[in-house]
């Protein structure tokens, strides 16, 4: 039995089982147990995972591991063509590390959702469905399966924010659902264009079939001559060939998910209103799905178009960095500040990807994982405060250090990691991204030099808002808006300590010994770059 399939369907099946069980607090323990089991399976897979897969000129099944391929269905479309979709699940360096990240974050979120009191059974079922969808999304290599899991994440998220969220939760959840759905519609159009113009030779001579398999689609040979997405297709609309339009649609579709500058307005609302465990998952994993999708569908299928439009992708990244930073500086709600910091940090991912140099793309993937650890820690810090006093205004607190020592340590570690202090993983990611994007100016001339320079200003801004927040909230004499809070502000409970300091440990480990993760990412990034460079 393929381990990946177990990882995906374990939570989904347990969701069904929990659905039948009577409601009760013990369900939350089951939730943690499932996530723990997944971690055991993952670590067992990690032992077997080989980090030096040979890179070849084209993607093939050999460049992936834990491959499981089963025929799902052939939908006969009229006489000659048929859409054959198969359950094709596999993992390479990037997706394996992202799965690892999501399992860790899911455990943390499961532990942190022990504080949920309202109808627990519904919560646990939705949580487990979300769990399965996330793992499935990262493991799927068949576009249909990927799209299924990509969309299947929206529904549980909608209800999780909508029912257990803060005061304006309905508005936030519907806005989240509509934005992401619009994004996924754009991706659906590209998906259809892909499989309509795909022309994969099946075993039988002369019989061709449409396929949605990522590996087949990444090879230029598998496209129908007249199909719009054929490499030499000359037809253009408003100056761009159809393949460029496909990349633009995929870029916008996933740009909405990875909050890119113009489409990010759903993130602050969703984060502010979502309960702590859910905003941990939203920040930790869901934003990475956008980045991962962009790598898989954007850069793997349309590499040359991606290079042509690299300038725009990087521009969007840089704007997101600056815009996110400035907004964070200006906002006085702690969760909104952290949300905007996420917009800023994910801007680096775009900058790294657009640079098409080995350091840049490596930096981008590393940033996805490091941000996946840092921003959940930040949200947990704000969650700790919110659980006690139900208020997130930064100006309402000052001098918390004297009352809550351990929280201050955690907050300082989290904020310094987010501004890219060297001992933490954020620094490695931002360093590699900047090295890559600057070097791309010199080597392949994709990005102008001023972009990484502006990005470094972004770093200063992120340092500014991080330190300003620490200074206003944690240091200085102790004074709180309402006196009633002062006795509620007890220090971290053991549960919170476990969550915060395990994350801090991971961030520190990835900061001091990055080679452990980079070796895993290195091969798959190299394989991607071979596609992008030729």
């Amino acid at each position, binding site marked *: 039995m393929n381990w990946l399939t177990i990882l995906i369907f374990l939570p989904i099946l347990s969701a069904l089982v929990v659905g039948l069980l009577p409601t009760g607090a013990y369900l939350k323990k089951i939730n943690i147990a499932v996530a723990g089991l997944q971690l055991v399976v993952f670590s067992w897979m990690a032992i077997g995972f080989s980090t030096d897969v040979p890179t070849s000129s084209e993607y093939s099944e050999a460049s992936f591991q834990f491959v499981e391929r089963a025929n799902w269905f052939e939908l006969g479309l009229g006489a000659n063509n048929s859409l054959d979709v198969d359950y094709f699940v596999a993992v390479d360096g990037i997706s394996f590390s992202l799965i690892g990240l999501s399992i860790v974050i899911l455990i943390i979120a499961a532990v942190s959702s022990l504080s949920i009191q309202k109808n627990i059974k519904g919560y646990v079922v939705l949580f487990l469905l979300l769990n399965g969808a996330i793992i499935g999304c990262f493991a799927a290599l068949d576009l249909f399966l990927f799209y299924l899991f990509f969309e299947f994440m929206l529904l549980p998220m909608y209800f999780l924010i909508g029912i257990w969220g803060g005061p304006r939760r309905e508005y936030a959840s519907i*806005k989240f659902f*509509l934005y992401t759905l619009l994004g996924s519609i754009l991706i659906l159009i590209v998906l259809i264009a892909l499989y309509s113009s795909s022309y994969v030779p099946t075993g039988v001579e002369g019989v061709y079939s449409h396929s949605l398999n990522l590996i087949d689609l990444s090879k230029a040979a598998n496209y129908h001559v007249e199909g719009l997405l054929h490499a030499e297709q000359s037809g253009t609309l408003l100056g761009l060939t159809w393949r460029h339009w496909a990349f633009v649609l995929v870029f916008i579709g996933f740009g909405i998910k990875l909050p890119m500058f*113009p*489409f990010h*307005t759903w993130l602050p609302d969703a984060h502010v209103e979502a309960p702590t465990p859910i905003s941990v998952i939203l920040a930790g994993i869901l934003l990475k799905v956008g980045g991962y999708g962009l790598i898989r569908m954007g850069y793997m299928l349309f590499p040359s178009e991606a290079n042509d439009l690299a300038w725009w992708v990087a521009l969007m990244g840089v704007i997101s960095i600056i*815009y996110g930073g*400035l*907004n964070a*500086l*200006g*906002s006085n709600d702690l969760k909104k500040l952290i949300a905007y910091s996420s917009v800023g940090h994910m801007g680096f991912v775009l900058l790294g990807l657009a640079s098409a140099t*080995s*350091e840049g793309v*490596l930096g981008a993937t590393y940033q996805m994982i490091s941000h996946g650890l840092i921003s959940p820690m930040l949200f947990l810090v704000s969650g700790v405060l919110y659980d006690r006093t139900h208020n997130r205004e930064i100006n309402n607190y000052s*001098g918390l*250090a*004297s009352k809550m020592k351990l929280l201050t340590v955690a907050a300082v570690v989290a904020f*310094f990691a987010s*501004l890219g*202090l*060297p*001992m933490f993983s954020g*620094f*490695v990611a931002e*360093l*590699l991204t*900047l*090295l890559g994007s*600057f*070097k791309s*100016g*010199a*080597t392949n001339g994709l990005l102008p030099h001023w972009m*990484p*320079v502006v990005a*470094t*200003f972004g*770093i*200063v*801004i992120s*340092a*500014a808002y991080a*330190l*300003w927040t*620490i*200074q206003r909230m*944690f*240091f*200085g*004499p*102790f004074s709180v808006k309402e006196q009633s809070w002062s006795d509620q502000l007890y220090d971290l409970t053991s549960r919170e300590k476990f969550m915060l300091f395990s994350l801090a440990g991971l961030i520190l480990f990835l900061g001091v010994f*990055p*080679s452990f993760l*980079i*070796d895993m990412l*290195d091969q798959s*990034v*190299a394989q991607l*770059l071979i596609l992008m460079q030729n």
Partner: protein
Amino acid sequence: MEGIDFNIALIHYILFSGIIGFVIMSVISFNKRLLVVLGTALALSQCLAACWVYGFIAQNGSLSSSVNWITFQSSTLSLGYWVTTEAALMLCVVTLVSTLVNLFSSVYMGKDPGIRRYYSYLSFFVFAMNGIVLADNLLMLFVFWELVGLASYLLIGFWFDKLPAAKASMKAFLMNKVGDVGFLLGILIVWSNWGTLDLEVLKSMDLDFNNAAVIAAGAMLIFGTIGKSAQMPLSAWLPDAMEGPTPVSALIHAATMVAAGIYLLGRIYFMLAPEVLVALAIIGAVTAITAALTATKQFDIKKVLAYSTISQLGYMVMGMGVGGYAQSIFHLTTHAFFKAGLFLAAGAIIHHLHHALEQQKEPVDPQDMRIMGGLKSKMPFTFVVFLTCTLALVGFPFTSGFLSKDSIIHQSVEWANSHGGWTFIIPIIGFAVVGITAFYMTRQLLLVFFGEPRHEEFSSTTKPKPSALSFSIPLGILAVGSLWFFYSMNPFSAEKSWLVRSFSDANYQYPPVSHLLTSGIALTLLAAGVVFGYTRFGKAEQGMQLDEATTWNNRLLRNNWFQDKILHSLVVGPILRLAGLTVAVEKKIIDAIVNAFGVMMVVLGKVSNIVDRLVVDMFVSLSAKTIGAGGQAFRSLQSGKVYLYITYAFLILITLTIILIY
């Protein structure tokens, strides 16, 4: 050879003992006595190891080893050591001063509840500082550069419950961060052009200076120095850093951290193009003169010393700029000793005043010189140490300061001779700074030690209890350290000093111009400064009124050339306003534009209303059938009257057929 592996092991020990100390002291809660002993012992062991390594390096040249940190397809980023003589020397200086500070703060911080946190931060700082000294490539330099920034952030904000301390630590870190960003850009340029960050490799490439990339890289890298060593544009944070405990100021903001900037220049000296050096000279000179002038008007004992540090750092940067590579490093070493001595002496005074003022009701700032005076008799030993270190600082003969400062001045005169023209300003500023330094140091001496005690509290107390041993040992060592013989036998000629000769590029030779002429000018200026100081501050009260007068230059200098105001209005204010603007933009415009559905529906509602009214009213004066508000969209079509439905439907279809026919 057995020696190398042993020495590398020693270096490993020196570096990692700091971080291990940090972890142990912050996790395990020792009692106070054990903590102090452990901290000092750790520092001492590091110092001995450093001296051993220096001995080894002095004989058989530099030593280097490195390990791969990040490896990806084509290239690798590595971390390692490149221990040259300057590195070994700096190592000794850092570890020695940290030992003395550890010893000193055992009493100074004795009663402070957070002493455990204090000692762990100190040990973390030493670890970071050693990292900078040992780094063999720009990346490792940058990593420890920022860690030192973190250490100084933690230490300045040690008493975090005091708001000014918290604000000062944030300001320090942010201004360092601005400098670091420049440093990072330099690294980016180096990496993208030459593909490696390793200093030895870069040095062996002997890059030619008229290549634009080299100049750009040099220009960016010196930004790091400007940030860390508080040079002119970014020097506002050092005076505020005095909020931290005095031993911290002694260690970090006098001897080691601020010197890191100079050390960085030393490390990348081979890369610095002539234009960059000229820039350095100018920046150094400007900083020196402005800081010195500000120091003349300060009343807080530590602020005076802080500004004097900035001025001396300006001196060293100027030294580097004018080509005096070895002299600057020499001055850096000597400065570390006597400035640390001055700070620790000030610390002793503050500690003593603190005791005395304990019983005072209304809070009096123990650091304010205006309440001091006549301490000569109260604290004779501290007075002697303070005096010797002041002499060294001012550059009085028979002191280390004289040797190192004059060598820099010689070098600047030499440099001005060779470049001619406007460059003579630099030595002139050099000489002026010597005079001003003499003036403000004598002012400080007079205000603190001579004259009658101004505060009634001191006059009455009996002789203060003898200063603790842990005060006197560090002060003594530092005082001795600032005398001449420790460096070269002949008190008057710097080039014979063993230290200067041991530098790696041994071809340094003494500047030809008559050595005595420049020393003479310097000494006369020195004397003038002292005399002017004495005339002004002979009688303390009268001098003080002069300083407190609100003349324009007093205000200008007391507020450090209004740097804080300029900084706030030019940088901090606009960024905050911009942030406010983006938040407003976010709320109103972006949300509205991107929230397409609401807009689309309203627009469609409007459009269909207009069409509906136009079509219907044009022909039939309908009864007052009010059309619903915006959201009514097609509901208004659904008016309930059957005949209307049919006419609409038929009308639309007929118009369509007509359109299609044409």
